[in-house]
């Protein structure tokens, strides 16, 4: 029975960070047109919600896919310490070259979390505001979705 079922653990984390959407490959005018108020030179911030989905076998001794304390410590170290109350453009090396849109943020966070040793990272979802959210999975996103 248990093999016929897939079980996924979902955990939400929160961080606050600032960003500015600006591409050095575009002119000032194009940047302004493409990114609108997100191109404001002084940047702005969001309260991001990060949702991490992990799959794996449920260990009969603990009843868990992964110990939450291990997952929390890993996410804290890999993501939250470097992202929370930071400027994504200035403080996260990956965004010196790439525009810190939430699409790129999802992909960067996926790369940082996929090495979690105790379960398989299925999917990352980042909510930028209550009205915008983005998801990323390394393989076919739809293929990983229930």
């Amino acid at each position, binding site marked *: 029975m*248990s093999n*016929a*079922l897939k*079980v*996924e653990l979902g955990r*939400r984390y929160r961080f606050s960070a600032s960003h500015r959407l600006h591409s050095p490959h575009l002119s000032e005018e194009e940047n302004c047109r493409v990114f609108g108020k997100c191109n404001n030179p002084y940047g702005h911030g969001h309260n991001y919600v990060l949702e991490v989905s992990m799959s794996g076998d*449920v260990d009969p001794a*603990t*009843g868990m896919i992964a110990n939450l304390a291990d997952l929390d410590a890993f996410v804290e170290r890999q993501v939250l310490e470097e992202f929370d109350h930071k400027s994504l453009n200035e403080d996260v090396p990956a965004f010196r070259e790439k525009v810190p849109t939430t699409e790129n943020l999802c992909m960067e966070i996926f790369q940082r979390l996929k090495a979690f040793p105790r379960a398989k990272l299925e999917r990352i979802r980042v909510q930028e505001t209550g009205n915008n959210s983005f998801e990323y999975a390394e393989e076919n996103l739809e293929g990983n*979705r229930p």
Partner: protein
Amino acid sequence: MVLLTRKIEFAASHLYHNPNLSAEENRRIFGKCNNPHGHGHNYTLEVTVEGEPDPVTGMVLDLKELKEILEREVMQRMDHRHLNYEVAELAGQIPTCENIARVIWQLLEPKMTQGRLHRVRLYESPDLFVDCYRNGAVPAGKS
């Protein structure tokens, strides 16, 4: 295929303790969830059923019937109960969100008279939840 989701809430207490491990190991693995007097949560359960709407009623299944199934199978068993001591289906298992969600799937799946169980999502808190679904399930719209 259409997916239909119904949400219910129940409150229950539990504790995490494996009698095959030492007291020290239990404390190390389960932390404050190992408190011998237990603790509780307001659980939120989302049950998603898949199917084609009936041409006559326009429904995948009658919501009233789903509500009754959830009342009988989940609420009466788990609401305001101690999950370690009062739920037979969880006997011998640590009542983690993973195991509770799996038991709920196993209770509900054979009771579906119309439609097919697609997903069980159980929230222990707004920041922690477990999804159960059939291994190799075909995503919505791809069948």
